[in-house]
């Protein structure tokens, strides 16, 4: 009998009435492999790809396209086969029928898996074979392709088994369809959902949470605590030619799920058909797993709605409501009776206490999330988002093969550039202390400034901006923080990083690419205008780059925190990796573009000497200014003053920060700006350094401030008399002297 039950005749007998499953899967795999193959090859031909490109694309189809289309049908097959094989456990009649048969439970389990596999594999193999034949007929056939097909078969099989066993496990631990769907949803969405909740709480309650990057627990929950997340991770890695580690994780998880479902099937009492949860322990765990996030989630929802100081009240209300409702619904689902909504009060109380404890962790920042900086001895490197920090930066470039480069996204891949903590040019104590000091101030600073904006202006006239910092530990763990930094802290950090030569190296690395790949050199002059320079004189590029290298090497750390007079932007065109998504029909070699902006400091004498040859203004002194319009910004009204005297204009030039850059380490006067007008009538905008304001500007600013203060005090007076408690029709007239002043 044992051999008979694994025979094709047996499969045929038990498949009576279920022939639609293999038929449906055959149709699915037909669409997934041969049809996609035909469509894609036809499209490539029509788009004008070269034979080499088509071969590359076809090879990639077996890695990328078929992984997706075949994977989709494999998932569908797993769901159908899982349901077909084990849904009987939900029916008392069917359970009695199958479990009374003289077969051991263990063998019945494997028989059902075997039957499901037959349904899946037969159409799969036939359709993959057909796709290979189609490719071969169009001239695409090689051992490499066969290898790719076999690898793809293995991957799809693992995906099938993973989904299949997760289905089986859920069917074995639940007793009815409602609970089955609920638990299935939980298995696949719990990790990502919890990750979203944790992220929301960190965003809502912590000042330094870096939302744009997924890391640590949040990333782990999203990518690893869900079979779908794992498959997605693996697919992404596999398309990049990696993924062995992810495949091993998938394999181990599949084996684990198979083992769990086997145990759950063997131990499942037949009488549990129809009851929501089969195992009491699992029921309790599921309830706790649902109630706590639901309580916290509802709390957060109510926390977001009000904009008043009642936020905390509504948050607590939401926490209680969410906990009670979710507990009630779970209990109702377990007992299949609405009368049980408020039963098991002790469990409800316990869940409520856990929710309260979790909420308190965030409210009080119990683990000092905002001020935490990893101990220096544990740090491997630190990355800083220099995009907001200093524009003396460029795209992240990595040489992946000999002469082939990978270029990062300018703004998103800042964390790829790591400043090493140990080694020759390490992050020193000064830099580390600077980070600690910044971290220490975050809680207080966060209360003062509004969230969300990248650059925020403080109420005390202190401009702060947000920048990302990544601490990489020696264990490989990454910790991201989003710090609000002011100009003084920024200056200190720049000096420290240049002192330790980390930043210097970053700039020099870019210059080391040389003029071979240099496409354009763009000069941002002191007047804020941009010019292409030496486009036809490549030897001048070499000369300028050499001069720049020498100047950067010679410059002291304090110079980098000084005032740049102009900047240079370099555009590189580098040989890149052949990539399907960016493949252009007919293009032989793929190009990657990288950009670098380098501030030119007054100390860069060699560079300035070369730049002088361009004839463009290098410093503000090179520009003849005819008049300057100073704008004073009050709270509601702007005031403008025009200065034309040479002496005044020179004083303004001395205090000016050149246009064309964002120099976050320089403290500028935010209530005052200057528009210079050149002799030629061209206008450009500059900011004035704080503490270096000429007397006449200071005076003008103070007058504006006084007017501002007067207005504020008038508002105060009115507000003292008016309002709900007093007569609302009283109008306070401005005093006589105020009127004369104006």
């Amino acid at each position, binding site marked *: *009998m044992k051999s*008979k*039950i694994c025979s094709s005749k*047996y499969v045929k*007998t*038990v498949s*009576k*009435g279920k022939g639609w499953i293999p038929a449906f899967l055959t149709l699915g795999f037909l669409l997934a492999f041969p049809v996609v193959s035909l469509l894609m090859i036809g499209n490539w031909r029509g788009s004008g790809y070269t034979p080499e490109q088509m071969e590359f694309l076809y090879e990639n189809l077996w890695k990328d396209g078929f992984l997706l289309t075949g994977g989709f049908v494999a998932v569908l097959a797993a769901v159908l086969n899982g349901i077909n094989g084990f849904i009987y456990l939900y*029916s*008392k*009649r*069917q*359970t*009695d*029928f199958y*479990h*009374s*048969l*003289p*077969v*051991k*439970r263990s*063998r019945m389990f494997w028989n059902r898996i075997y039957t499901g596999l037959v349904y899946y594999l037969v159409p799969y193999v036939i359709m993959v074979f057909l796709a290979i034949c189609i490719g071969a007929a169009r001239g695409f056939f090689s051992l490499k392709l066969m290898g790719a097909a076999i690898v793809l078969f293995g991957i799809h099989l693992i995906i099938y088994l993973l989904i299949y066993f997760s289905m089986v496990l859920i069917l074995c631990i639940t007793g009815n369809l409602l609970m089955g769907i609920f638990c299935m949803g939980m298995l696949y969405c719990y990790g990502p959902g919890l990750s979203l909740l944790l992220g929301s709480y960190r965003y809502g309650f912590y000042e330094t949470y870096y939302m744009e990057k997924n890391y640590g627990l949040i990333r782990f929950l999203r990518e690893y605590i869900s079979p779908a997340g794992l498959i997605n991770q693996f697919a992404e890695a596999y398309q990049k030619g990696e993924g062995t580690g992810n495949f091993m994780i998938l394999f181990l998880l599949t084996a684990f799920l198979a083992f769990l479902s086997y145990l759950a099937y063997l131990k499942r*009492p*037949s*009488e549990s058909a129809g009851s929501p949860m089969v195992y009491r322990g699992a029921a309790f765990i599921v309830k706790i797993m649902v109630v706590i996030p639901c309580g916290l989630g509802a709390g957060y929802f109510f926390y977001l709605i009000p904009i008043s100081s009642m936020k905390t009240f509504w948050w607590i209300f939401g926490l209680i409501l969410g906990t009670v409702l979710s507990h009630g619904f779970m209990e109702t689902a377990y007992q299949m009776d609405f009368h049980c909504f408020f039963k098991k009060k002790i469990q409800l109380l316990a869940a409520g206490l856990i929710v309260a404890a979790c909420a308190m962790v965030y409210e009080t920042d119990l683990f000092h999330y905002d001020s935490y900086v990893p101990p220096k001895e544990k740090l491997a490197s630190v990355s800083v988002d220099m995009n907001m920090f200093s524009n003396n930066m460029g795209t992240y470039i990595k040489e992946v093969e000999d002469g082939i480069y990978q270029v990062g996204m300018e703004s998103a891949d800042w964390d790829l550039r790591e400043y090493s903590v140990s080694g020759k040019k390490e992050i020193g104590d000064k830099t580390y202390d600077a980070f600690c000091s910044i971290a220490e101030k975050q809680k207080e600073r966060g209360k003062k400034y509004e969230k969300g904006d990248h650059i925020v202006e403080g109420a005390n006239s202190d401009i702060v901006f947000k920048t990302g910092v990544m601490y990489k530990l020696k264990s490989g763990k990454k910790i991201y923080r989003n710090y609000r930094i002011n100009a003084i802290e920024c200056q200190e950090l720049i000096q420290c990083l240049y002192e330790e030569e980390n930043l210097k190296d970053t700039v020099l690395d870019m210059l080391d690419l040389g003029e071979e790949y240099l496409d354009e050199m763009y000069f941002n002059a002191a007047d804020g205008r941009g010019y292409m320079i030496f486009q036809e004189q490549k030897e001048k590029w070499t000369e300028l780059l050499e001069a720049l290298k020498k100047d950067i090497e010679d410059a002291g750390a304090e110079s980098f925190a000084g005032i740049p007079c102009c900047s240079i932007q370099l555009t590189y065109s580098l040989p890149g990796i052949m990539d399907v998504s960016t493949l252009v029909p007919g293009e032989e070699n793929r190009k990657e573009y990288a950009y670098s902006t380098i501030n030119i400091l007054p100390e860069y004498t060699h560079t300035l000497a070369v730049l002088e040859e361009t004839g463009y203004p290098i410093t503000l002194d090179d520009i003849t200014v005819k008049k300057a319009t100073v704008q004073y910004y009050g709270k509601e009204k702007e005031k403008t003053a025009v200065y034309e005297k040479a002496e005044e204009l020179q004083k303004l030039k001395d205090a000016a920060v050149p246009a064309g850059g964002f120099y976050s380490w320089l403290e500028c006067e935010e209530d005052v700006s200057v528009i210079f007008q050149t002799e030629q009538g061209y206008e450009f905008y500059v900011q004035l350094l704080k503490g270096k304001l000429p007397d006449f500007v200071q005076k003008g600013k103070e007058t504006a401030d006084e007017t501002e203060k007067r207005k504020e005090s008038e508002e105060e007076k009115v507000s003292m008399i008016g309002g709900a408690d007093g007569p609302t029709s009283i109008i306070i007239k401005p005093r006589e002297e105020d009127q004369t002043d104006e």
Partner: protein
Amino acid sequence: MIEIKDCSKAFGAVKAVNKVSLEVGEREVFGLVGSNGAGKSTLLRMIAGVMKPDEGEIRIDGISVYDDEKAKSFLFYISDDSYFPSDYTPGDMANFYRYYYPRFDIQRFYKFLHQFGLDEKKRISSFSKGMRKQLNVLLGVSAGTKYLLCDETFDGLDPVMRQGVKSLFAAEIMSREFTPVIASHNLRELEDICDHVGLLYKGGILLSRDLEDMKFHIHKIQCVLSDKSQERQLQKELNILKMEHQGSLLLITARGTRSAILERIQEKNPLFCEILPLTLEEIFISETEVAGYEIKNLFF
């Protein structure tokens, strides 16, 4: 032999079967009777190896039945609410069971189908409740197993078919080792077929006896006595379970052998005397009343 030792099964707070000990001998028809909720189906599902007892053990020919292929191959279970895979015909069912019961006699099965007028190619889903019950019995008999467990199988069968099934059982018992275990809430259904009866009440077994044995020791007599004093004398001399009057006719249900009871009555020179056949229900009334139970609490 099916041996049930101190078997218990609870569903939450409800104890469906409570410390039941029972033995089902070979080549006899065993009737398991009890009202709704007495635990018959639960006990039968445990005997079939579908459910595992919380306590105690069930052995089929010495082998513990739960999750044991060999022990389960000795029995065929027909549940009260039988399941047939969708789109299956009787022929498909026979093919299906052939893989599980190596002694399944497919020729005999088709012969039975013809005898009972069932179409082998018709979908079972189109069969009536009674036809499905018949089909199940035919499948069970054809499976060639030693034990056939029937849960309320006769419920829904018309008298002709019921008789047909009874004859089939009798023929099987005569021709091979065959022991049907029939669970029913209807005593009348079992009285002309069972050799041995077990009575379940609230999950426990009240009694388990051979029907012949019970019939041998309890008799019902109707007689007409000439004197009232003779009636009082009989009450002293016989172990009377029940005595009632129908006019001058006296109906006595008494324990004892037929000859001993008749001898006592003949001594009184009755005007008329005869032994009446006892129904299973009457035997049960007598037995359970002795055990301290009111029969109306058990069945009605």
